[in-house]
């Protein structure tokens, strides 16, 4: 079933056409990898979906409904959660406080921003969540995020997205700067996320990781989607050549023919 559909998204910054045209569909319980070199338009595309800036033209549909995403809050409310490696968590806050940042459980709600945090609920919910995603053994909900490793931080950020029942989880370079062990941990986590019924849009430079977790691959070049293939139908070398544009004409023909 279709969860997210983009139709002809376009975005320019001054005279630079960062996104010439992008259309694709993301289905339920599917991991789609978005590949491309630096400047291919990947981050412009995900910023548009996650509400960082509006697109110039084009439509976004969530579960078949046309939506307008004007802010990150809009995207979150529609069930689209974006996780950037360095910008997802506040290191000086505890795991529990990070998990509920912006959606804190409070008592006396009428006090608005001055409402007291429901600390017991915060702690319990955080502990339950860590347990559910299978990382409670190692981590205490009261631990500061600054004491965690990069992989643990990724897991926390992804757990948070799952917590709010996100339909679409966008992972922006989730394995950058991670060790081998930690990378495997995060990739395993992505599979669990899919098993739990969430859809994942994975942005990465590392093609090897893509082949381990993704169902489908979308390749961007110079602001356009130049290829879209299921992982089973392609191989590493082919994808690599599409990204670099080494043998574009033949591959484009192949894609268009599909």
């Amino acid at each position, binding site marked *: 079933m279709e969860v997210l559909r983009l139709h002809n998204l376009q975005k320019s910054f001054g005279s630079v056409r960062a996104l010439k045209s992008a259309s694709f569909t993301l289905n339920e319980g599917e991991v789609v990898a978005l590949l491309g070199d630096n400047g291919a338009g990947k981050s412009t595309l995900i910023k548009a979906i996650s509400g960082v800036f509006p697109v110039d033209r084009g439509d976004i549909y969530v579960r078949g409904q046309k939506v307008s995403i004007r802010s*990150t809050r809009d995207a*979150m409310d529609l069930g689209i959660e974006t996780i950037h490696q360095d910008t997802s968590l506040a290191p000086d806050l505890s795991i529990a406080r990070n998990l509920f940042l912006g959606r804190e459980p409070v008592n006396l709600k009428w006090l608005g*921003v001055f409402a007291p945090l429901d600390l017991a609920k915060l702690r319990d919910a955080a502990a339950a969540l860590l347990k559910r995603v299978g990382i409670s053994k190692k981590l205490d909900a009261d631990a500061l995020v600054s004491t965690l490793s990069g992989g643990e931080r990724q897991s926390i950020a992804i757990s948070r997205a799952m917590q709010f029942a996100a339909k679409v989880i966008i992972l922006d370079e989730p394995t950058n700067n991670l060790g081998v062990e930690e990378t495997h941990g995060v990739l395993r986590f992505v599979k669990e996320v899919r098993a739990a019924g969430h859809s994942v849009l994975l942005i990465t430079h590392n093609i090897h990781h893509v082949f381990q977790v993704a169902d489908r691959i979308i390749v961007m070049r110079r602001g356009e989607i130049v290829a879209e293939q299921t992982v089973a139908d392609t191989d590493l070398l082919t994808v690599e050549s599409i990204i670099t544009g080494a043998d574009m004409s033949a591959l484009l023909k192949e894609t268009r023919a599909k």
Partner: protein
Amino acid sequence: MTIAAEQEMPRSKRRSSLIRSPQFSSLVILIVLLAVFAIADANFLSPLNISNMMAFLPELGIIALGMTLLLTAGEFDLSVGAVFGLAPVVVMLLVQNGGFDIGIALLAGLLLCIAIGAVNGLIVTKIGISSFLVTLSMLLVVRGAALYITQGFPLKSWDQPGFFVTLLAGSFNIGTFRFYTSLWWFIGLSLLAIYVLHYAKLGNWISAIGSNRNAAVARGVPADAVKIWLFILTSVLAGLAGMISAFRISAASPVAGTGYELEVIAMVVVGGTALTGGRGTILGTIVGALMLRSIRNGIVLIGVPGLAYNIFVGVIILAMLILHALLQKNAARS
């Protein structure tokens, strides 16, 4: 709620996290400092001297509370000392030259502080200039304005007893101690600040903004609005402290509060709040305010020559910061 949660923690863990907390090392330094001064001069702990210290403490302490919240959110305000000087000067000019009622004049002073804070906040967040530069410029504008409108002369402050004077600068005796109502303001505002920073939803936002602004914004936290309100709050508290001071000494001087911005920041940082944002502690700031106040008081009592006074203050603050950093490093290692 919190107490129950704390009781769940094993005792050993609770103790080590207490020792590791930045407020704790500040408290240790404060106690040592008080002991040294008390031994050096018996008058240090006399009721008269304690009363004196408590009269001065709230004036800088109140500003330090606002500065703690602002620093936790990752911003500075260097214009607080100038606002401390300008607010009472404007209020007294309105009363003496403009013939306005003191209540109206105070309201105008409050609005002025709100405006100064709002301008600081708007320029910092919307135009994206560092708060260091923005508030440094604002310091010059505000101080310059205070000097210009008074032509550099101090004004006689409101000295007729009445509601506002009692509210801001009334005094009362407890035994042989003489306290000012400003102490109640400081205590009340401290409790409020502790609540907001550590227990309210807003405090979670403030810490998150200072710790990683992008993360907070990505979660839908209105970071700019929070910062603007914190600039306004800090400015208003600086104005309030200025009024309290002016009422207490019955004079409003255009140069009052010169250099206070740095002393306030020193109080906050010595207390354990991170200069880089994200980690703030009101309890630490209270300890820091006590520390700076007792240094200023203590070195006069032990007979440091007047002109050498600032050398000593500077050296002691530096020594405390070093000691603080070492204690923290040690605690982190163990």
